């Protein structure tokens, strides 16, 4: 049994990151380092209106006064912000009108990633916004969507074409001064996706953004803004990969969601940035601020995430439940292997009456990794009859890894109910024995158990993503148990 397990662990730790290739594309880059000039350079490059430059500079000046947070259960060498290229974009050959005109190299890249822009367009009916390094290269289905009045485009296009929407909503959920990494992003963000669903429209297809870091020494800073007007519905997916490199690359993103009355937004992520090699060298530092606000009554925001990549994950998708009867959900599977570190969880801030939230978090740690859940459930004075249920379970594989749970519960209201439960254990020997007894090999049995363990969350993913997520899970973990 012990040797079996060792083999399996070896197998797992040896499994390769298959998205680690580099595409040779001509890049347009900002000079290395960060200064007010870099901020101005990015803004000029994107031909931004004055208010955007001001927003960026305000954020940059704030950032200079801030200190990098150290409270997370993460250990990494200090990040040298002068050692990063803050803007890199594939050199545009000319204006793109149709998919045929996209750099074939790029299409090739996305095909390799399994995100065939063309195929997706024809078959799956998913609108994709592909973001490489810092810049959105292609958004599919724009025309179809515009029929419904839905705006789905890159952030910079939105800045050009819909400045009033940007002015109104950008920074309204994650203010420029929110936290160290969000402020950095506000100063130097290069692109991202923008999505606007008008009143009463149910978005007929899944919207998706695919992020890819390609160039070396760059940081990726994208910003996503989703606005669902009254009664609107959208399901949004996000995927990400990066090449295999020895140095650590920084990714600091912001996602803002605004849901007005009766609106519903479903946001799913499969995060598969390069996690570093098995010695813990290289990999992406992923510092992300994701937050949604249920502004109107009866609105709903749901986060689903599968976190398998990144050397370091620092991410707390949150929902501010401001409208009465609004609902917030968070479903997460976080897998760490080798020397990966994840400090992730969710915040549910209940402000409105009868607000409800659910947190289901499943952590799986193997190898030498550290996996932490950190969450906050806050019920404010006026949030009468609010309800929260949180469950965060951890599964440990191997005796060199760690699993930690930091749930914060703050209740200031007597008519609300908050429940939290968590367990930490290894794969139960009874379950394993049961499967083996029925002739299932150790490895398959573990696969079964882990998949069953994560099922609750995987079920919440849109179908297209669920398949990818399940594959990812099996790559990351197939059969590993201590």
């Amino acid at each position, binding site marked *: 049994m012990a040797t079996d397990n060792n083999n399996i662990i070896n197998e797992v730790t040896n499994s390769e990151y298959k998205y680690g290739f580099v595409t040779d594309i001509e890049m347009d880059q900002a000079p290395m380092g960060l200064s007010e000039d870099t901020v101005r350079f990015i803004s000029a490059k994107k031909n931004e209106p004055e208010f955007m430059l001001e927003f960026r500079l305000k954020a940059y000046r704030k950032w200079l006064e801030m200190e990098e947070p150290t409270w997370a259960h993460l250990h990494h060498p200090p990040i040298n912000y002068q050692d990063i290229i803050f803007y890199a974009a594939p050199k545009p050959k000319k204006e793109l009108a149709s998919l045929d005109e996209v750099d074939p190299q790029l299409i090739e890249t996305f095909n390799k990633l399994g995100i065939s822009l063309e195929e997706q367009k024809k078959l799956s009916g998913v609108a994709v916004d592909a973001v490489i390094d810092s810049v959105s290269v292609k958004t599919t289905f724009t025309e179809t969507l515009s029929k419904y009045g839905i705006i789905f485009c890159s952030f910079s296009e939105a800045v050009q074409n819909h400045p009033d929407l940007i002015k109104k909503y950008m920074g309204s959920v994650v203010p420029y001064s929110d936290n160290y990494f969000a402020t950095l992003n506000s100063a130097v963000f290069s692109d991202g996706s923008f999505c606007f669903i008008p009143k009463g429209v149910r978005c007929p297809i899944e919207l998706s953004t695919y992020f890819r870091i390609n160039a070396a020494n760059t940081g990726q800073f994208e910003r996503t803004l989703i606005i669902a007007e009254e009664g609107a519905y959208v399901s949004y997916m996000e995927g990400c990969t990066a090449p295999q490199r020895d140095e650590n690359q920084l990714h600091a993103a912001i996602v803002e969601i605004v849901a007005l009355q009766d609106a519903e937004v479903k946001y799913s992520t499969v995060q598969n940035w390069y996690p570093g090699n098995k010695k813990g060298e290289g990999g992406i530092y992923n510092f992300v601020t994701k937050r949604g606000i249920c502004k109107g009554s009866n609105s709903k925001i749901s986060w689903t995430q599968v976190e398998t990549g990144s050397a370091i994950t620092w991410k707390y998708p949150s929902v501010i439940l401001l409208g009465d009867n609004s609902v917030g959900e968070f479903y997460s599977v976080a897998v760490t292997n080798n020397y990966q570190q994840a400090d992730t969880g969710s915040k549910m801030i209940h402000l409105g009456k009868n607000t409800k939230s659910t947190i289901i978090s499943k952590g799986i740690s193997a190898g030498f990794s550290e996996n932490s859940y950190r969450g906050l459930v806050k019920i404010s004075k006026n949030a009468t009859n609010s309800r929260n249920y949180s469950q965060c379970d951890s599964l440990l594989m191997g005796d060199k890894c760690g699993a930690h749970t*930091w749930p914060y519960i703050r209740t200031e209201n007597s008519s609300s109910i908050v429940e939290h439960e968590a367990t930490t*254990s290894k794969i139960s020997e009874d379950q394993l024995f049961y499967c083996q007894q029925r002739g299932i090999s150790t490895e398959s049995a573990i696969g079964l158990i882990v998949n069953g363990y994560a099922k609750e969350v995987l079920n919440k993913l849109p179908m297209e993503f669920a398949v990818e997520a399940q594959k990812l899970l099996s790559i990351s973990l197939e059969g590993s148990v201590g």
Partner: protein
Amino acid sequence: MRSDTTDFPLKNTLINNFVEHGKDIFTNNKESIIDIRKQAYTKFIEQGLPTQKLEAWRNTDLTAVYNEEYDHYYTQSNVIKDIDSVFQCNIPHLNTTMIALLNGWYVYKDVPLKTMADGTIIGSLAEAMKVYPEIFDKYYAKYATSKDDGFIALNTAMAQDGFFIYVPDNVQVKKPIQIVNVIDYDKNIFLQTRNLIVLGKNAELTLVHCDDSYNHQKCLCNTVSEIVQDENSYLDHYKMQNVNNNSTLINSSYFYMKNNARLTTNGMSLNGGILRNNNHITIDGEGCETNVYGLYLMDKKQHIDNQVFIDHAKPNSLSNELFKGIMDDTASGVFNGHVLVRRDAQKTNAFQRNKNILLTDKAKVNSKPFLEIYADDVKCSHGATVGQLDTEAMFYIRSRGISEDSARMLLMYAFCDEIIQKITVEPLKHRLEDMVKKRLRGELSVCAQCVLHCSHPEKEYNFEIDLSKI
């Protein structure tokens, strides 16, 4: 609001007092103890008094407490008046060995340090320091390390007295030992006590520790206890807190357990202005079993902060935490549980539970049950709930003709009963049942004479169902 000031006048007063009253503080101290005190003093200057800037203190604001003026005493004669009044305070029918602390000093009728027939040594810490320096060299300030926060360093530097209990190997102490810590002083007072309890191999002890106050003066009391359990020892520890609403108790207990030691500690917080309980349990042995229970019933502006840190340093041990609280009026409660399972502590079972009932919209609860686990073959779980009385249960009781008030009382009592039933000392259990009932009715207050109602020990309180309302 978080306070940013760390330099309170109180800190400077204490620093000056250490220099000025050094002679009194060092009375009868050996060189080694003086060294420990001086180191802790340096540490305290560095750390200062804890404020909300520290993660461990973020939910407890002591700014107002620090800004009070207190009397400080470093000699015993000034604060001790009527010893006899202290000894009235006893749990009826409980056949105990009573020892008492009055305003931070050990008080006695005959001798400050006595050796019982079975070899157990009970008495004043200051006296024991003089008589048994070898025990102090071995245990004193070894577990309550100054690195935790300023209060620990301050206590190590300046606390002069407290109680000392030494149970030799293979001795099972038959009678429970009851410690009554009374605060009765006519001005605001700052006091510190330091306790040391050592249980030898196979030793057994039941300890009942009560904090009471007899008047309504403000006080800030900083207590540090070190409790060392050698192999296969058993300690049944009860801590009762029933002090006035102006009192602030900072109570830190450091438990250290070796192989197969068993510990049950049960904290009952019934009244107090600001109560802070740090339970720090180090399981440095295999086969240990720890039960940590807590019950807190807070109302008015009372604040309770329970911190439990359980360090599983060795494999095959079990820890079990259960804290329950009812918050009324504008009371606030904090529970911070931290279970650390170290890399080699395989086969650890650790369970953590915190349940709260909020009765008003102004009451608050902050709960943080935190697990930090580095070993894989473990079973750990935690659960926390904040809610109100079960409406279905309420309906069930009311549909049987019981008035709303009585029904609510029954349910609240039932909620508390889970903790009370863990008490193994029968008379104490009955006393607590009675006190909790009174507390829930709002009848238990810190009276001028005696909180334990010694004058009417025979009077039991029962639920009275008002038939006229049916």
